[in-house]
């Protein structure tokens, strides 16, 4: 058993930012375990630009953004292992890791940060009927094949789901000479960023069909066509609207799910809404000394916010290593009125970070609303939002005096209200 103060599982943007911040908070005994052969995580295949405006005040591509953090970790000489897959984590913080280089190694850590990201919802998860032939990819799988491995996945493409990866891949496939025939979205709105709808679809006249879904995939060996149909308000397909689109490839961008297999091993309490852990304002889960940050906690749209959240997790993990758990008395945050979830889900009665960011997603597209925090029925925070949408994470920053009220409250509700 190898003893470590802090082990960070995952060397993507969340893990790297957490490591850097832990180091800068004075911790030197840090180990990052990364299962891939490079640091940087999924950003390495997100070759498009649009990252880093918040963190670095300039527009970077995914690999460049990742490399900024990689360089900061390297400059601090933080230990990391590549090709190292963690196969279990226990609630007394024993990690079992395997790699080609070191074999099976057991570590014990004073604190663990789970930063293992998310995965894509597969075809099976949305029950699309039809042939199980080749040519159906999740968008991220196609992205890796095209951007890292250099292989083209198809010539005529239909994309189901208008999440950002789907939109980005529509442009990417177009750039590589494929014809993207349609992007089909089940909901009456896109869960992707507006800018991506403009620069990935509109720029290339790719039709975006809202309230439609794929009801059949045809083809013996390889996809030959897909059948799409409009859906009713209960999201059930209206078969009389079915139309067949000839294509050789179907890309799926139908949602991301926090990858919480390891958290389950350690008995970390998970949220049914986010799929990630339930954490406090220090990013600690219900298991003492196990922290979460980034997409394993809840799926973000912007990596900048992953970095920010992870830096907080790194700092708090070090605080825990040095001082132990200092809080046991929490206020749970409730949500209502169109707010689907808020992270963190609970706040200690003594928040000492000065200010606190609450991140949340709404359940639908709403216009002219206020994001409100109510403590025992009294509004202590209100922020006007002309438009809110499920695809765009909302953030509230509570200042010290507002936090004071939250900490004293019994019922704290985060909600949307009419202006």
């Amino acid at each position, binding site marked *: 058993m190898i003893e470590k103060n802090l082990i960070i599982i995952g060397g993507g943007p969340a893990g790297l930012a957490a490591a850097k911040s832990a180091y800068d908070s004075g911790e030197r005994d840090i180990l990052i375990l990364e299962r891939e052969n490079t640091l940087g995580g999924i950003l390495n295949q997100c070759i498009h630009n649009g990252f880093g405006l918040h963190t670095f005040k300039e527009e970077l591509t995914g690999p460049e953004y990742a490399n900024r953090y990689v360089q900061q970790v390297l400059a601090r000489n933080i230990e990391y292992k590549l090709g190292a897959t963690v196969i279990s984590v226990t609630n007394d913080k024993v990690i079992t890791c395997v790699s080609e*280089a070191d074999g099976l190694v057991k570590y014990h850590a004073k604190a663990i940060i789970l930063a293992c990201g998310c995965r894509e919802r*597969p075809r099976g998860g949305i*029950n699309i009927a039809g042939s199980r*032939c*080749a040519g159906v990819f999740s968008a991220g799988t196609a992205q890796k094949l*095209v951007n890292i491995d250099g292989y083209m*996945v198809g*010539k005529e493409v239909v994309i189901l789901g208008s999440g950002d990866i789907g939109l980005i891949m529509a442009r990417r496939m177009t750039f*590589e000479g494929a014809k993207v025939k349609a992007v089909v979205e089940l909901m009456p709105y896109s869960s992707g960023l507006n800018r991506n709808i403009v620069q990935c679809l509109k720029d290339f006249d790719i039709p975006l069909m809202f309230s439609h879904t794929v009801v059949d995939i045809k083809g013996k060996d390889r996809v030959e066509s897909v059948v799409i149909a409009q859906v009713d308000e209960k999201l059930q397909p209206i078969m009389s609207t079915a139309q067949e689109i000839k294509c050789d490839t179907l890309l799926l961008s139908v949602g991301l799910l926090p*990858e919480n297999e390891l958290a389950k091993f350690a008995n970390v309490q998970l949220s049914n809404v986010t799929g990630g852990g339930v954490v406090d304002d220090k990013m600690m889960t219900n298991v003492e000394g196990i922290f979460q940050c980034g997409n394993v906690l809840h799926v973000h749209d912007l990596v900048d916010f992953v970095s920010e959240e992870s830096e907080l997790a790194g700092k708090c993990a070090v605080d825990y290593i040095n001082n132990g758990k200092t809080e046991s008395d929490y206020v749970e945050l409730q949500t209502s009125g169109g707010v689907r979830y808020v992270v963190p889900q609970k706040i200690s009665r003594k928040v000492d970070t000065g200010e606190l960011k609450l991140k949340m997603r709404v359940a639908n597209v709403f216009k002219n609303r206020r994001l409100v925090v109510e403590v025992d029925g009294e509004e202590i925070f209100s922020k006007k939002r002309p438009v809110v949408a499920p695809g765009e994470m909302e953030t509230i920053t509570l200042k010290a005096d507002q936090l004071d009220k939250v900490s004293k409250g019994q019922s704290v509700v985060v909600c949307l209200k009419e202006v």
Partner: protein
Amino acid sequence: MSKIIIIGAGVVGSSIARELARYNADVLVLESANDVACGTSKANSGIVHAGFDAKPNTLKAKFNILGNAMFDRLSVELDFPFKRIGAMVLCFDEKDYPALEELYHKGEANGVKGLEILPGDKARELEPHISKEVVAVLRAPSSGIVGPYEMTIAFAENACVNGVEFLFNKKVTNVRKAEDMVVECADGTSYHADMVINCAGVFADEINNMACDKKMQIVARKGEYMLLDKTNGYLASHTLFQLPTKMGKGILVSPTTHGNILIGPTAHDMLDKENVSTTVDGLNEVYKMASMSVPELNKRMVITQFSGLRAHNVDGDFVIGESEVKGFYNVAGIESPGLTSAPAIGDYVAKDVAKIMNLESNPNFVPVREGIKQFSTMDDTQRAEIIKKNPLYGKVVCRCEVVTEGEIVDSINRPLGAKDLDGVKRRTRAGMGRCQSGFCTSRIMEILSRELGKDMTKITKFGGKSNVVIGRVKQ
């Protein structure tokens, strides 16, 4: 040496091939797909039936009972997953109670051991998640579950190491009697044999009708399934049937040998014998009917759907025996309980053919086959050891099912090794987990490409034109 051709490398063809390897004969298996277990054998319920459902005094009843008894030994000998977990037939209405009793008596007549009828409350003690509507169940402790393609692969591998030759992508277009039997394939090749054994599944009628005047009709009866995430494994510990209908055994809810929950199948007769696509209606029916047995089933926990075609003989029973054409042997209409019966059919047919052809036994036959060493089921000491021996076991390729590069390389390089993504998947489970190969597709393609010395653009999902990528970018 006597020459024997087996048409079809499904579970029946592979079982017969393995049993024939016990004799001195030149055995060749011709398979139209790119791998073994590509038809009905890969897409079925994976149930080792107790035998209460088969009509007494039929071949189905006979081979069901004989086959069931062979699994404990065979699964160890050939190293494939099998668990004798028992089954329950759920009765939702007092009115149907006589039907349940009839099953009980049919089971007794067939020689099924240990059958008991339990009241609903008693059944819920054993299976707490079954519906409150269940008033009684028939419990059959001898029922089991098996990995159907793992079993087929095990038979085929063992046949192969004992000298049986397998050829793939051999679609048989004609079988005719000349001086000996001649089998012609779509690629222009032809093969001669003293005996042709027809194990062509849903196509067994077409093969029969090429060779024989006495025509046969096999209907492809589609069954659609949904597979649920392993986290739902707690929902059932027995295979849970509903009272059977004339189309089959109804929709079941069952654990799989790997801890998932399988629900299905539907039963719809198909004209197109290659149509294994799932349908909106079919999947809805599966979910709706399965939810009657286990109301807690959650559609969001489904990780994949598939369908298979049962080879239903319109005359009802299995067809097993030499046809009116000497040298042409039918093993046809092997629908449920076909998987259960397969070991016993293999044993019977091999002995029968050996008798007809006067075959001598093969003293060099090795009955034992060792499967791929599965990392996910090892304890940490075993894991540490195997990585020391073969560091590729330290490289986890499939995260969800924890499958290592060591296993994938073994699956490709062992006898009758995997040649495509689905082949790797069925042998190692890589890509069978909750992400359904989202992360590991490109890694497995690279390993296939490296081990087979084949360009990435030639790597397929399941042979034929199922290529995964179509070319290179920027060239």
